[in-house]
Each structure stands twice: as C-alpha cells, then as structure tokens.
C-alpha cells in the first residue's frame, strides 16, 4: 500500500498553481528507478520471510507477498544494496542492471 505515481500537468498560468504553500500528501510524479546500477533480486527458494530486508529498506520498496516472501518495487528501488547485505540467508543478490537480459 503505497502512493501511486500520477500524471502531472505543468501549470500554464499562475492560477493553475495551488493558492497556498500547502500541497497534497503522497503526491508522486516521478520514479527513482533510474538511480540504480545494481538491482536486488530475491530468490524465493531461499527466502524464509523473516522481513529483515523489509524492516531496513530506506525506500520502503520491499513488501510481503501472500506466500510470506518478499517482493521489490523496482520503480522506487535505488539499488543501495542494504537488503542483500543484511539478508542472513543470502536470498537477495545484486545484479548489474545492464546484465539483466543475459
């Protein structure tokens, strides 16, 4: 359960801007995927669902799946590698983005 990215229409005229400095919470118009050099890949065979990675993810991109594993929202993962480093079972490996198709 996360805020969704929505389309943003650039204001054309001054009246299109909000009238106060207040603005809607959870208003996302851009992703962070492009920051990554390496991407974390979860091996569901090895994952026991301890949720350590979920707990320590700075970006909150890891979530629980129905079968008690984890999955990653690659739209907002920056590839910091904390999840892979903290996983006691080596169930997450960092793979170079460019190598993905190999």
């Amino acid at each position, binding site marked *: *359960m*996360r*805020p969704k*990215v929505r389309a*943003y229409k650039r204001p054309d005229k001054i009246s299109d801007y909000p009238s106060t400095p207040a*603005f*809607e*919470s*959870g*208003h*996302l*118009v*851009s*992703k*962070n995927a492009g*920051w990554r050099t390496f991407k974390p890949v979860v091996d569901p065979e090895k994952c026991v669902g*301890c*949720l*350590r990675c*979920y*707990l*320590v*993810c*700075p*970006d*909150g991109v890891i*979530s*629980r799946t129905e079968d008690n594993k984890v999955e990653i929202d690659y739209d*907002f993962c*920056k*590839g*910091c*590698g*904390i999840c*892979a*480093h*903290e996983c006691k079972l080596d169930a997450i490996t*960092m793979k170079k983005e460019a190598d993905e198709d190999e």
Partner: protein
Amino acid sequence: MTRMSNYNIRPKDLTDQEFFYGHKACAGCGATIAVRLALKVLGERTFSVLPANCMSAVSFIYPQMAFATNAMIAPFPATGAMLSGVAAGAKALGLKDFQTVGFAGDGGTADIGFQALSGAIDRGDDILYICYDNEAYMNTGIQKSGLTPYGTKTTTSPAGENLPGSVKHKKNMFEIVAAHGIAYAATASIGYPNDFLRKLNKAKSVRGPVYLHILASCPTGWGSKTELSVELAKDAVDSGLWYLAEYENDEFKLNVNPKEFASVENYLSKQGRFKHLKEEDINVIIEHRDKKWEKMRKTWL
C-alpha cells in the same frame, strides 16, 4: 533490557502502508530508515514537523511530496515550537487519536533547534521529538555540528598535519534532554531496528514530551558504502561509540551492555571521514568511550 518489553513490535505487525515513499534521499540513507519506521509505528493520523535538513529537502520537492501523511517544514531553529503549536492547534480543533512528531537532524537539534526543544520539553507539551543523528550538517555539504564525534573530517573540521578533524566529542544530548525531567527519552540506532520500534511504540503511549535520539548513517557524509548503512549503525553500538539507553521517572537504563566491545578500528576503517586517523587519535576516541561507559555502568544498570 526486559523492562517495558511489552511494547515490542514484530516486523510482521507493522502496517503494510508506506507513509514515506518516493523521496529523493541518497541511496542507502540511514535517516530515511528512521523516518519510514517511525511513521509506520505512529500511523496515518500523524502530523510531522521537519526543519531544514536532508529529510525535508528530499521529500518536499514540488510537485513531488514523499510524505503520505500530514507534514510541514519549520524554520530551522523552530521544530520544538512548531510541534507545540501543532499539538495545541489539533487539541483546539477537538481532534482525537493523533500523533505529533518532529524529525530534526543533529544540527537542528543539538545546535540551532536546541532552545525551541528545551522550551517544548519544559512546557510539558504532548509531542514526540526525534533527532536523527548523522553526525554533521549533511544537507549543506557536511559541516561539523555539536554531535560530530572526535576525529571526524568535515568541511569545517578538516584533517591535516595539525588537526585530527573535529577536536570535540559528541554533545551529551540524551542526558541534557533527560536533565529537563522529560516524560520519556531514549537513544536508538538504525542498526537495531527492533529496539527502535519498541521505543517508538512506547513513545506513542506516553503523555507529555518524548525525545528519541537515533543514530542514522549517511553514506554521502560518512564516506561509506551504501550497503553498509545498517551494519555501521550496529557497529557503532557494538564498539561502544554509541549506546542504547532509556530515561524515565528520573532513572537511566542501559539497554545493551556489551561484555566485550567490538573493534573501534573496524568501525572507523569503513568510513572515509575517519580514514586519516592516526593511532594516537584512535586512542583518544577509545579513552573517551571507556570513561563514558564507566559512568553509565555505574549508574545506568
């Protein structure tokens, strides 16, 4: 260690909702772990106040807003004052079941926000103040604060022939806050997230001012690998350079008392900000640690 353990929260008990999402913090930013977990425990009905610091700079980027809860920016020195105002305003509106939390950096807490924090505690306002301590003014490019440890290279505490970097030890913020007779105060580390969750949960139930001080690594300012952020914050506790403690009812309590400290050298060597340290500088750090622990062990156990 077991006192107040009934406030424990397991990761699987946390809400699936993410209230701090899509922020533009550096990859591996430790402070964002602190903010994210805090909001998950405090919940949707939370008013957040942030002064100028990295956490506000990476989330209030018009038209992108990474806080999915109510949040606002305070002038740099005003976090404590704005928290009081928000809590009073919400009460005046008759709102029930809400939390008021501040997320200030070490600079915004120990230096510039200090007066407003002290005032808010003194008034006994029902607020939660979280200091995420990355040990320098990071958002403006790594300047030394009152919470920068001895021997840290920052842009205002350069290291060279004559200086080991910062020549002052960390300000004892936790004890200074406790000296107000605050309702509840605790230290934490993103290296011990379960301990932090418990303290947040406890903070939620306390009426009156609460102060949580959490060590949060910063790969950019610390010159460390992004994947090491959680490990480093744990190393800091295990090596005795940081400590996990609580204050309540006029009493201090050490939560973790290592039988043997992990290696200080190992902790320091993983960070660019300490790369220059000579053996004599490291000895100053260790000596200071030992003095601090001697005192804590005498009266905080």
